[in-house]
């Protein structure tokens, strides 16, 4: 069973970019909010990797990460952020994030990190 990738970002441009990079290789689900992501994960049990933006308008990415890792510990979560901060990175790692990508990112980076984390 091929696993799906969930993209969580409130920026349409970023969602579209990730779609462009990944859609040829994986099946994708897109959502623009943390709440949306949690709602989707309740029903979709074939999600292997989540690409999660940290700075979103409503719920903070790290809170969403915590929630996902509590409810779905098997799913690998990769954080996407514009901040290159050691604190956020280590906090994300502590909460169980499998990877950390800093914007602006390259297509290869995304493909490599997703491939590594898909089971």
């Amino acid at each position, binding site marked *: 069973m091929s696993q799906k990738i969930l993209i969580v970002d409130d920026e*349409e*441009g970023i969602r579209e*970019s990730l779609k462009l990079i990944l859609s040829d290789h994986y099946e994708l689900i897109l959502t623009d909010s943390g709440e949306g992501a949690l709602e989707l994960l309740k029903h979709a049990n074939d999600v292997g990797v989540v690409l999660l933006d940290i700075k979103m308008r409503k719920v903070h990415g790290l809170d969403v990460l915590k929630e996902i890792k509590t409810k779905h510990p098997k799913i690998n979560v990769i954080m996407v952020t*514009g901040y290159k901060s050691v604190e956020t990175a280590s906090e994300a790692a502590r909460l169980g994030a499998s990877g950390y990508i800093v914007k602006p990112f390259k*297509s290869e980076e995304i493909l490599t990190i997703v491939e590594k984390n898909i089971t």
Partner: protein
Amino acid sequence: MLKLNPFALAALFTSFSCLWIAGIFLIYGKNTLHRLWAIFNLTAAGWAILIVFAVSTKNPDRALNLWIFAHMIGIYVPIVFFHCASIFCNLKAKKLIIAAYIYGILHNIVSLFYVTILYQGVTYLFDSMYYIQFNKANFIPSMSLWIYLAFYANYKIFIFSKNSPNKELRKQAQFFLIGGIIGYLGGSSTFLPMLGFSSFYPLTIVGVAFYCLSNTYAIFKHSFFELVVIYKQSIVYSILIAMVFLFYVVAVLVLERFLQDFIGYNSLSMSIVVSFIIGLLFVPFKNWIQNYVDNAFLKGTPYQISEENTLLRQELTSADKLRSIAILASSLAHEIKNPITTINTFADFLPSKQNDSAFLNKCRQTLLHETNRIQQLLTQLLSFAKPSPPVFQAIRPQEIIEEILLLLEHRCDKQHIKIIKTYPTQELILADPNQLKQAFLNILLNAIESIPQEGRLIITTSSNATSYFISIQDSGIGIKSDELKKIFDPFFTNKENGTGLGLVISQEIIHHHNGKINVKSTPNVGTEFIISIPKYIKGAND
């Protein structure tokens, strides 16, 4: 009432000068050297004031006693001076200092009980005063330590002023030395009539006051003895002018004496001429001193200083501004990363998908959208970073609001928003209409955008004695209490296409107008912005 002859006057002036220096060191002094220097000056002041009384009395016995007392105090002048010099120059001279104080005490004892060893008595000199006469045979042996200490101390200061590695200390030592030499020459010149030089009228005692003048200069200009004085400019002026003026009077008195002795003149007409000259010279002289003091001590005239302060204030304001811009710019850099990422990715896929028309369409759409966003962010940032200088005029705020509402009418109609306006006040505020328009526009746009479907927008003005209030109330979705704190933070936004700069700019503009902006909000009920701006009161604001 004392009738002061010129010499007494000069001695009085000398005494006050020394008290002035002693006062500064007593008030601002921090260490042993400071306190000792105060004692030195008190000693000199005591010596001089006793001379004032001694040369003013008509009773020869009293004059003799006063002279003896003056010298009993005066004997400590070189002793304390040497003590100070030894501290200042780091001399290891403990034994000499102790010996000097013992010498002082012995001299005092001899003065009290064996007067004739030191003095012959008083003679009436210059047709005006009783002057003490040294016992010439004993002068050198009895005063040898006095003379030795005075020379030795100044010699040591001289050496120090040449050899000290510290430039500031060398400078201080120079003042110490110059003051010391002039002071000693002035002070010891009073010995000359005591030693038989009966034609020498010792007005040169003001040399001691000269020493005080140079000491004052050294204190304020070079922190003499590391003394830090927080002083008022006006006090320095007054004291310096007073000292120079007194010096002037003494000089005139000398001239009078000279003319009296050699030419003979009418005292009244001469005094009138002298007063006239002083009157003519006083104002330019005073101005010259003020400018000199300004430049020497304060590095500028009051006008230059106030100009410099204005510049400093402007610099502070722009520094403040730069700080906000720095915050804005760093946030902006972060905001721009999103469109850059998108543009990058789409550009990256262009070669491989150049035949995919759906992609090309999407690409065009996305790139335009993202560059538009960057453009929007930059425009907002620039309008914040470089606002045009405000042109303030007396205006009615409701007129500004009406102008904006005209622009927003169509939008409100479409959204079924009812606008309720009440402008009971007709008062004026002092404001820049363009800036205020921008401030209100941002707030009104937020209000309109917060109303989901249909709703109300209530605009009310009111005023009290000093301020004008504008309330903008909407029936929108409201702001959560934890977000309410952040609404004036740059780039905080809840809107899909918001930049998060609107309210930052509004707040900045209102603050420019010395106003305040407050916000109250209840989620699902609405938000109220209250802007207060000082009222324009004719005359008060002009």
